[in-house]
């Protein structure tokens, strides 16, 4: 299981890099931007909060960079991200904790659905390469894949929420109080349909094109012809011979793809005022709330890393060559 050990080491290195970027960025910028922020909130924050911010961003301090860094790492490990200035006096950790479940739910479920649907479509389209539906599906996928998520979200919202009024304009659940039990669940689902559909439809195109390309390249492999020579049923060849192998590169390219999807989720949330991490990030940006931004960035990085790690593990199970060491 050296492979998994290697992935864990990489996970830790990347996490460290993300944390360090967070530390260095504000200190690297001309005229520490945090000073601007603190000056802006002067009067609205109590002096204690301000001095905490000063420590966090290395302003008015005589400590060496290294000491600051050490201090900072310590705070990161304990989950102490400081106080949110836009939601003062709530701590960043608390603010984040409220948003995280929404994003995890929305992004998690829709990404998985998009991946499965896109991959299945990619298999189909390449297997029936010369059919009419395939020749339509490919250009459509190209277009979907090139759409800005937020724009598609806007259009979807306009058409289905505003013009037809079938779905709510935004939010995560009905604000009418007293909802509980099944009614609440229903309300949550109802509010999630449009944002989820946006993410699924846009992300699906990319997965489909990737899978289609992988499939086409696998289909010219000798073991496919050999499977035909053996008189195996088409379905068996399509799934267990072609698709089983074609899906492997999807996992190695997962890192970049998931980054794209996450970006899309953030923007979609903003359009639908969905109270997740993306919407929170938007508010942090509007209010120049650096501590909150940093914590969100760190959270997203960790989420992506975990997703990647899971993809790596799945890959090990799918590819026996990875299991027995080697690359």
């Amino acid at each position: 299981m050296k492979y998994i050990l290697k992935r864990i080491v990489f996970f830790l290195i990347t996490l460290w890099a993300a944390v360090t970027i967070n530390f260095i960025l504000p200190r690297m910028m001309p005229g520490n931007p945090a000073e601007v922020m603190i000056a802006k909130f002067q009067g609205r924050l109590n002096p204690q909060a301000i001095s905490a911010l000063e420590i966090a961003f290395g302003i008015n301090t005589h400590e060496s960079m290294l000491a600051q860094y050490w201090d900072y790492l310590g705070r990161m490990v304990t989950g102490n991200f400081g106080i949110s200035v836009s939601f003062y006096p709530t701590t960043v950790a608390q603010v984040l904790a409220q948003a995280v479940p929404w994003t995890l739910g929305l992004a998690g479920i829709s990404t998985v659905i998009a991946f499965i649907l896109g991959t299945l479509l990619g298999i189909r389209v390449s297997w029936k390469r010369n059919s009419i539906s395939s020749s339509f599906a490919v250009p459509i996928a190209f277009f979907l894949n090139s759409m800005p998520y937020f724009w598609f979200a806007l259009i979807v919202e306009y058409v289905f929420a505003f013009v037809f009024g079938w779905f709510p304009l935004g939010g995560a659940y009905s604000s009418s109080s007293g909802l509980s039990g099944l009614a609440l669940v229903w309300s949550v689902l109802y509010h999630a349909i449009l944002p989820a559909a946006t993410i699924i439809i846009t992300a699906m195109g990319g997965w489909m094109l990737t899978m289609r390309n992988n499939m086409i390249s696998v289909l010219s492999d000798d073991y496919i012809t050999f499977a035909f020579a053996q008189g195996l049923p088409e379905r068996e060849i399509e799934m267990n011979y072609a698709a089983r192998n074609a899906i492997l590169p999807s996992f190695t390219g997962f890192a970049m793809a998931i980054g794209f999807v996450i970006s899309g989720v953030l923007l979609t949330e903003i359009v639908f005022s969905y109270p997740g991490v993306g919407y929170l990030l938007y508010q942090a940006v509007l209010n120049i709330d650096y501590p909150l931004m940093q914590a969100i960035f760190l959270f997203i990085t960790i989420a992506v890393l975990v997703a990647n790690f899971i993809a790596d593990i799945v890959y090990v199970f799918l590819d026996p060559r990875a299991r027995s060491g080697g690359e």
Partner: protein
Amino acid sequence: MNYVKLFFRNKKSAIGVIIFLFFVVLAIFAPWIAPYSPNSMAFTPLQGPSWKHWLGTTAVGQDILSQVIWGTRLSLIVGLITGGIATVVSVIIGLSSGYLGGLTDDILMTITNIFLVIPGLPLIIIISAFIVVKGIWTIIFVISLTGWAWGARTLRSQVLTLKNRDYVKASVVTGESSAHVIFSDIFPNMLSLVVANFFGAAVYAVLSEAGLEFLGLGDSSAISWGTILYWAQNNQALLFGLWEWAAVPGLLIALLGMSFALMNFAVDELTNPRLRKR
């Protein structure tokens, strides 16, 4: 080589090139094509489409069609320049990592993988939130910073296969210098991949720029498709029923992105014999 000919004969790239040229023409001749000055606020605000204003007017009374036409310039420039910078960085990193190998390779590839995994848009958002003075170059810089990693990785693996080709070994045995081997034997043979990568990076740049502008993190006084969308969203264009205001610039972003993506795929298809079959 005859790849150039094949490129124009390929259906995907032909469509991609046509869309791309359309935007180039739009960008170059914007002053002549656009009916009004994009900054002129001389019109009645928040008007729907009419013969005078095909796409209506903004909240401060600007002609949206003129803005969209002028906006082509910025989107195109950001796409091309950022794609170019990201490609140059990927080529440098990919070539040195693949050719030199050893410890250099290990270090460069770890850095590349980190950049690959750290989610791009949030990082872009953080960086541009920290940068106080904003302009087109800030955007280009920030997007290039996050857009090179994938290219570096694919180019490196290409270098590794090319490095093991016998003709590279033959050049070494003939007595060629490393520089000559890299620039005469390796680099020219991976040009198509570099080109494909450029298109890929350009798609990424166009979409990221639009996202940044939409969040108000760009230069909101500049005229680009992203800022038009930003203003449309901020003025709740859709709720006023002014859907053209948001629909058209977004559509153009998608089309430009698609034209780059089509050209990217076409180059891939032409140079990867397995995809070319049939």
